[in-house]
């Protein structure tokens, strides 16, 4: 299931607001739902509100009075007629929203859906503070706390998930995700214990116990090793860190065993916000392996250095299958991962007190009619063309460039007066070169040369 259309009749700054979330004409997937969407816009334009509207629509039970059952989980979801009624601080899904939007019969847990709010790094505190119930020496989660997550917990049913990964559910969600890792460690401990016991028995018993252990190791992938090698370590390595593929104690089950590349463990209180962000974003996706799901992420760039920001969307998508990713961001590096038809830029309409979508195409909505291709632009061009940043640099640099131009004009004047060899000109030329170096501005090697440009 993917969202193809959203129409908001009236809610906060949205007024008769429509979004078309399909590939444009001329695209090989024309008319099909977008696989990824990037929401941009000045703070306050409503990016997070849009994510919340989608979340609310996907997590609100359908109208029980609607008895028709023509819903197909493969259907695309048109949130047409989504009517959010409300007071400024309360989102309230109006009844007819899901009558038209949900079609009928669908239950929230039928939809693969995960929402990562912007503050996910704060999830680590409840995860670390969890007092786990201990059963048979191993921790176990309390399923009753996770109503919305129940279908995922029932192992005899297809994996479905519909949850918001916020502080309220953080520890429960995390516990469920860590189940396979705990189970693996438990099994390994059992088999090693049997080997230990067998050393006092016949040699054949010891061989059998060792063989059992080896066979199990060969046939059972270590989920923590997979998580570290296939998902987290390629990115954590940029921070000089990695996830150790083996737990040293069950206390480490609370989160993940993070260590430096030379093997020094990082105590949980010293784990950086960026490490938390990456781990709490990618690990759930890796462990759930969302398929045909809708994934919302608010500000995936939080606490991440630019080199990681430029790769994060690719990393997220690599953990999903046939899913729809919708992110809200302020980062040009994130925006660079999207095609222009995948970008929804919200702008204020000051006159009418509402927001509108800035269109990137002229004429027909066709791939050939798009003005900007963020993927093919330099990051500074994205800032100018997509994020509408007027300046190239800090205002102080503009001041310095004015000074540079004044010095240049004075040198031009001295050249016209035939005084280019004078002491005054030499001094100005030295100042000019120094200022050009300071402002990273390329100049020709000779005074009075014709052209220069930004490096």
């Amino acid at each position, binding site marked *: 299931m993917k969202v193809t259309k959203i129409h908001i009749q009236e809610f906060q700054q949205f007024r008769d607001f429509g979004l078309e979330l399909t590939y444009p004409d001329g695209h090989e997937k024309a008319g099909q739902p977008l696989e990824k969407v990037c929401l941009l816009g000045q703070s306050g334009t409503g990016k997070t509100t849009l994510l919340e509207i989608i979340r609310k629509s996907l997590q609100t039970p359908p109208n029980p009075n609607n008895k028709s059952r023509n819903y197909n989980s493969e259907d695309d979801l048109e949130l047409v007629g989504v009517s959010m009624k409300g007071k400024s601080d309360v989102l309230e899904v109006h009844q007819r929203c899901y009558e038209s939007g949900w079609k009928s019969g669908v239950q929230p847990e039928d939809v693969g859906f995960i929402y990562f709010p912007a503050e996910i790094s704060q999830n680590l505190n409840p995860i670390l503070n969890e007092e786990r119930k201990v059963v048979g020496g191993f921790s176990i989660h309390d399923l009753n706390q996770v109503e919305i997550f129940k279908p995922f917990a029932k192992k005899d049913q297809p994996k479905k998930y519909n949850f918001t990964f916020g502080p309220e559910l953080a520890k429960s969600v995390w516990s469920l995700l860590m189940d396979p890792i705990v189970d693996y460690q438990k099994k390994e401990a059992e088999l090693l214990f049997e080997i230990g016991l067998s050393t006092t028995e016949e040699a054949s018993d010891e061989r059998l116990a060792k063989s059992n252990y080896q066979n199990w190791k060969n046939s059972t992938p270590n989920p923590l090793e997979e998580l570290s090698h296939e998902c987290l370590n390629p990115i954590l390595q940029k921070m000089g860190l990695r996830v150790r593929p083996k737990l040293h104690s069950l206390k480490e089950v609370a989160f993940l065993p993070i260590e430096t590349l030379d093997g020094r463990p990082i105590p949980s209180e010293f784990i950086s916000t960026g490490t938390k962000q990456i781990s709490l974003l990618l690990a759930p996706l890796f462990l759930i392996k969302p398929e045909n799901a809708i994934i919302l992420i608010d500000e995936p760039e939080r606490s991440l250095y630019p080199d990681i920001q430029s790769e994060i969307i690719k990393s997220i998508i690599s953990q999903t299958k046939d899913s729809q990713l919708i992110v809200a961001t302020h980062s040009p590096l994130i925006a660079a991962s999207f095609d222009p038809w995948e970008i929804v830029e919200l702008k204020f309409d000051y006159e009418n007190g509402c927001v509108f979508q800035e269109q990137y195409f002229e004429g027909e909505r066709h791939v050939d009619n798009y003005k900007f291709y963020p993927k093919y632009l330099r990051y500074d061009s994205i800032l*100018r063309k997509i994020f509408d940043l*007027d*300046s*190239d640099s800090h205002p102080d640099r*503009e001041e310095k*460039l*004015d000074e*540079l*131009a*004044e010095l*240049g*004009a*004075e040198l*031009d*004047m001295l050249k016209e007066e035939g005084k280019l060899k004078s002491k005054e000109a030499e001094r100005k030329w030295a100042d000019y070169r120094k200022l050009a170096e300071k402002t990273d*501005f390329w*100049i*020709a090697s000779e005074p009075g*040369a*014709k*052209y*220069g*440009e930004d490096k």
Partner: protein
Amino acid sequence: MERINKRIRFSKEYKSWLEDLERNNLPHPSYNSSNGKYYPDILMELLKIQRGCCAYTQKRLCQDESVFAPQNWVEGKYQGKISSSYGELEHFDEGLKVNKAWDWENLFVVDEKVNKNKGSAPVDYILKPDLDSFLPEDLLSYHIPTHRFVANPRKSSEEKIRIKEMIKILGLNFPVIQRDRGSYLNENRKKDGFSSQPNQYFAAFRHCKAKFPR
């Protein structure tokens, strides 16, 4: 910048309305309340005088010359269509906006971003484009490598400070404009060495052409 020779030729209804106000010493209606009345007439009359360009930066605002054809004015009022890309009416001296909101002498058409940049900053008439005393070539120099206007280095220190401040207020080196102007002039240099007629940034174009005679 260039000197702008302002004369109302087509918007005759606005002209007589304004003359009537002046003759009878009547207050001007506030700017917002009558935006619809003579706004298009003034905008298009000025834009025609300004050769389709921003009064201060000379960035081109209107590509289609046909919108200035005399037949677009019927009985002294502009009847053609107006695009939001044609720029905005701007009060050179914001201080006059309260009592003389529709004063012809104080109005210019400028690029939207230039207008926003200028805001309500107090102005120095040293760079008022329509004054007879305004001699842009004497006041301003153009530094080609940085594509920035600066005060003529031959002026006095006191004048240079005044000019510099006005360059900033009028947005002559506003980054978006400066970048666009640099690109336009570099393209012209590569194309034919400034041989063809420019359709914007006329003053900067002349500076470049003088520096690089063919």
